[in-house]
Each structure stands twice: as C-alpha cells, then as structure tokens.
C-alpha cells in the first residue's frame, strides 16, 4: 500500500472576482521508502500541495475537490483536532527557514522533548536521552552539552539539522520537506541532503521533497513530479525525467539549467512567464509558451498520459 495517495486534489481561493483555482486535479502517490521530488517555478503550486496535504492551508484557501489518503485512510476531511494528532506523529514537516521553524524562546532540547512526549509515551528521562541521541544522529557535535542551547546559538546548517531531528523524532511515516536546503550555502546544502537521505533510508521513510533546485532533486529523489500552473505536467523516474523529458515544459526547464560538466554557448530559454491564476489560458496552460502547440492544445486540457518513459500531460502523446 502507498504511504500517500493524492487524488485529483484541487485547491481554490474564493475572491471577489470569482474563485481562483490554484491547484487543479493534482494526483500522485508515494510508495514506502520512496523520495518523490516536486519541482517547478515559483507560483507553480509546489508548496501549496504540501500545505494541503498536512492540512495547513491558509484561509481563505480551501480544498475544492479530490482526496488525500495516508496509508489508505482519508485525511483531508478530518476535524482540526484529529489532524493535529496526525501532523508530527505520522507526517513530519521540514520548512525552508530553520530560524522561523524553531521557537527562539525554548532550548532545542525542550522542543525535541515536547514534540516526542506529545506523540510518544515517554518519561522525562527517556525523552531527554532520546533527544541527545537524535542530536548526535543528525551530526551535532557535543550533543550532551548543546541540548540546552537555544536556536540562535546554532549556525544555519546546524539549525536545519535540529529541524530535521524535530521532524523525525516522533517517528512519522512520511516527511514533507519544503525547500529544506534553499536557505543554506552550497557546502552546507550538500551535508544536509546527505543527512536527510541517510536518515530516511535507515528508517524506510517516505519523503515528499519540494524544491526549485533541480540539482537537489536529481541527487536525492527517486521519482520527480514537475508542476506548472497548479498542475502536475510530468511525472516519472528521476533519470528518465532529467535525461529524456517528454513534456515540452520539462524539456525547456532542463535545457535552461547551466550544468558544470559542459559549457554551452546559449542556454535554452522558455519565452514568456507562467500565466497568472486569474488569466489561465483555455486548453493546456502551457500552450502560449510552448514551441509545439497545435489546435487541440488551445481547446482541450490534457490529463497525464503515458509518454515514452514517463507520464506527461501533453497532447503530443495522445
């Protein structure tokens, strides 16, 4: 059974000028132990997907359709209190900025202990022991002494390690990591990815890794979902999507990234910009920028369909 199934998830924002659809029939699933990378440009709906899954949509945003299943049980319609128990216990979350994730007034040890005791039956002494073990496990030197330190006493990379410990300490099945390395320097970024990869492998955790950095995804993910304008436009194995993309948007995206191994004279560029939510073109949302548009693209909206080695929402493969 899949750890997570997202089926036709739709998120809407009611406004005075009508309802804006920010996520449009998003479907994917994550198997046990699998890392699914979710990529796309700002505004594509990556973070919103994560927020909708853990039930943290900011009002007036609301789920307008579809369902979210965690290990086969529906969680998108649970009352607030029940959902609160699932967050942390079954789904851990790691956000971009470690400084705003941690409470500056509590020592990191207290935050770890509180999180564990909320979700697991542990005595104070046991919880403290475990907190030290967690800090050691995420690579914080002198964990025994550092456990009583406050977040501001840690560097950015160390703070993100604490956040990872915090997300994993209640032993969830699924971790949603939203841009976990974006705020970090490159050399620290590599350390954090390696750490996340090791911990999730050791524990057989499933991860939904949201980032705009294709390098991070290529390195850490098993499968990739590419999002554009609130829809999943392509999904498939990481090597297939990166090396043999099918959707013209993915092709453009991969070509626009400068790579280290080869110097090219010109980067491929996708003309124009992503459409705004209130000005979605009819048919395929990518059609105004697509070099291979034909009549059908302007009239009919494509769903995900098998396309060579991946699945793509594109009429070229109909």
């Amino acid at each position, binding site marked *: 059974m899949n750890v997570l199934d997202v089926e036709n998830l739709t998120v809407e924002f009611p406004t005075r000028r009508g309802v804006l659809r920010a996520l449009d029939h998003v479907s994917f699933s994550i198997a046990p132990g699998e890392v699914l990378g979710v990529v796309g*440009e*700002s505004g594509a709906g990556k973070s919103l997907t994560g927020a909708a899954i853990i039930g943290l949509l900011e009002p007036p945003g609301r789920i307008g359709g579809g369902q979210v299943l965690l290990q086969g049980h529906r969680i998108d319609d649970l009352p607030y209190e029940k959902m609160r128990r699932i967050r942390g216990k079954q789904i851990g979350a790691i956000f971009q900025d470690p400084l705003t994730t941690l409470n500056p007034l509590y020592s990191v040890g207290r935050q770890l202990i509180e999180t564990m005791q909320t979700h697991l039956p542990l005595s104070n002494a046991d919880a403290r022991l475990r907190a030290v073990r967690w800090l050691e496990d995420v690579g914080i030197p002198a964990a025994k002494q550092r456990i009583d330190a406050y977040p501001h006493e840690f*560097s950015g*990379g*160390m703070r993100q390690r604490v956040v990872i410990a915090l997300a994993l300490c209640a032993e969830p099945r699924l971790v949603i990591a939203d841009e976990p390395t974006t705020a970090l*320097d*490159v*050399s*620290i*970024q*590599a*350390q954090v*990815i*390696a750490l996340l990869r090791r911990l999730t492998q050791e524990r057989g955790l499933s991860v939904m890794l949201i980032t*705009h*950095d*294709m*390098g*991070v995804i*290529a*390195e*850490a993910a098993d499968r990739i979902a590419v999002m554009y304008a609130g829809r999943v436009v392509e999904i498939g*194995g*990481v*090597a*297939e*999507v*990166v*090396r043999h993309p099918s959707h013209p948007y993915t092709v*453009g*995206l*991969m*070509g*626009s*990234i*400068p*790579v*280290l*191994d080869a*110097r*090219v004279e*010109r*980067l*491929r*560029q*996708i*003309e124009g*910009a992503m459409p705004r939510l209130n000005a979605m073109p009819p048919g395929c949302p990518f059609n105004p920028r697509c070099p291979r548009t034909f009549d059908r693209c302007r009239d009919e909206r494509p769903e995900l369909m098998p396309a060579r080695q991946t699945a793509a929402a594109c009429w070229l493969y109909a």
Partner: protein
Amino acid sequence: MTETRTILEAIEVTRTFDVSRPWLQRTLAGEGRRVLRAVDAVSFAVTLGRTLSLVGESGCGKSTVGRLAVGLYAPSGGEIRFEGQNLSAARAQPALRRRTNMIFQDPYASLNPRWRVSDIVAEPIRAFRLLKGRDVQDRVGQLLTQVGLSPRDGEKYPHEFSGGQRQRVSIARALSSEPEFLVCDEPTSALDVSVQAQILNLMRDLQERMQITYLFISHNLAVVRHMSNLLGVMYLGRIVEYGPGESIFGNPRHPYTRLLLDAIPDIGMAGGTNSRARAPIGGEVPSPISPPSGCTFHPRCPLANARCRAEVPRHTLDGDVLAACHAVEEGRGA
C-alpha cells in the same frame, strides 16, 4: 576581440570593517577593538569585453569586492585602478564615473517602487546630462527594447512586473549611462531557472554587441562557468584560486575549489550514473572576525599539515592558474 586592454585592476586590495562594541561596553568588558577583514590582499585584472567571476560561499567577501570595484567602498589598503587611474581619483570625474555601473541581486529592493520605470531608467541619463528633452524618452524606449521589454512598459511601476522583468529593468538602467564596466552582484539568484536562463542569455548578447566588461559575482558555480572567461574562487576574504575558467573547471588545484565542485548537486547526477563522486565538505565557514591561523581553510582541508596551520600560503603559478595552497605548491596529494 583582439584588443586586450585592462579595464580594472585590483592590486593587493584589503578592506576592513570595525565591528567593535560601543566604547563603554568595550571598556567595561576590558576588550580591545575588533576588526573584520572582509577582503584580504586581493589582486585581479579584468580585460575589456571579458567576464571575471568571483565565486564563494556567503561571507567570503565577494560582494565587498564588487562594491570596492565601483567605488562604493574605499579600500583600506592596496589600490584599485580603472584604466590605469586610481579609482578614487577617477570617481571624482563624472565622465569616468559614468563608465561603471552595477546590477544588484534583488530586483524587488533595487528599484524605487514610487517611480515609473521610464524615470528609473532615465535617472543615470539625467544625472550625467547625457541627453535632453524628448531624446531622453526615445533613449529609454530604445533601452527597454534592448532588454526585451516594450517602450510602453516605461509607463508602469515596478510592482506591475515579474521578478525577471524587473531584473531586465535594472539591466536597462545599468546600461543607460553607456558603461563599459558592469558589476553584477548575484543578478540571477533571486530568479527561477527558466527566467535565469533568459537573463543570462541577455547579458551575454549585450556583452557581444557592446563589448561590456563584467565583474560577475555569484555563489552558483554552474552559472559562473556559463558566464565567465576568468574565475576567482574566494574563501574568507582571499582569492584562493585564480585563472581561466576552463582551466579551473577542467583541473581544480585548490582543495577548496575541488570540494566545492564535488559538493554541488547537479542534474548530471540523476539516477545514480554520477559523473562526479560526491563528497560533502565537512565543517562550516569560520567567523571572519577570528579566522584560523595560517591557511584559513586548514580546519576543513583534507590535505592540511603543520605548515598549513602556521603559515599563510602565497599564490603560486601552476600552468595558467594561481593557487594559494601549500599542498599544491609542494605537489602533495594532487
């Protein structure tokens, strides 16, 4: 491009900042003044129509070098020369000042939200009295077209544009005084990758058409490789490796450059067919207020020995690359 005229030259430039606590607190705590050495004896030269890139992690001093290069900071030691003239002397003459300009990282913070785009782009033209009356608006229209916007966009305010379009406005503004030398401080790091490609392509087109010289500052090695002819890798205020981009990427000498190249996640790694082995650098960048003794990279360096901990390495030439490393000099562990 047969001409190889040096536009900008930095000779042993140092910049320090006083980061002491206020006098009373300092006296009560019984501590002396504290000085942060943001840039330490940095030398480089940029040739007309070429790009020199500086890369490094946050806090390595690359942005300070950029600000020194346009005269926004004065060097605490050493000298910067613009076409052979001392930069601080050159800054006194508007005719020379016009010839350098800067593009900043954040296109949201670097454009005045209360000004129309046409006024933003026209400001340098008016400040240097290059054109008058109708000609100014015609020139603004031309500049906007050059960067891929429409002359009618001049009527709008910055908030009506996306991040990529705003960065195009900053580029138009930077070009409006017809500079020969542009400092670009992380011009694409606030942008999405597909937009980044648009801006990088635009910058290269402009360079070819107008022979502009760039000092390009970035933390992204792949972007730097795409843009630069010459490369300087910075660590804690020093240039640790300096030379033609192709030579450094083909055969990095300094252990920091090597580790940096190894550490960067790259789309070439997809699916386990890694062309480069992965080796995250251990440790973190030390505080520049109290840098380690000797070679400042020694606490993180796999090749460090007693000499590295004691003695500051000098730049030595290896092929066409300058590297500041005892291990490279002695031929250890290559």
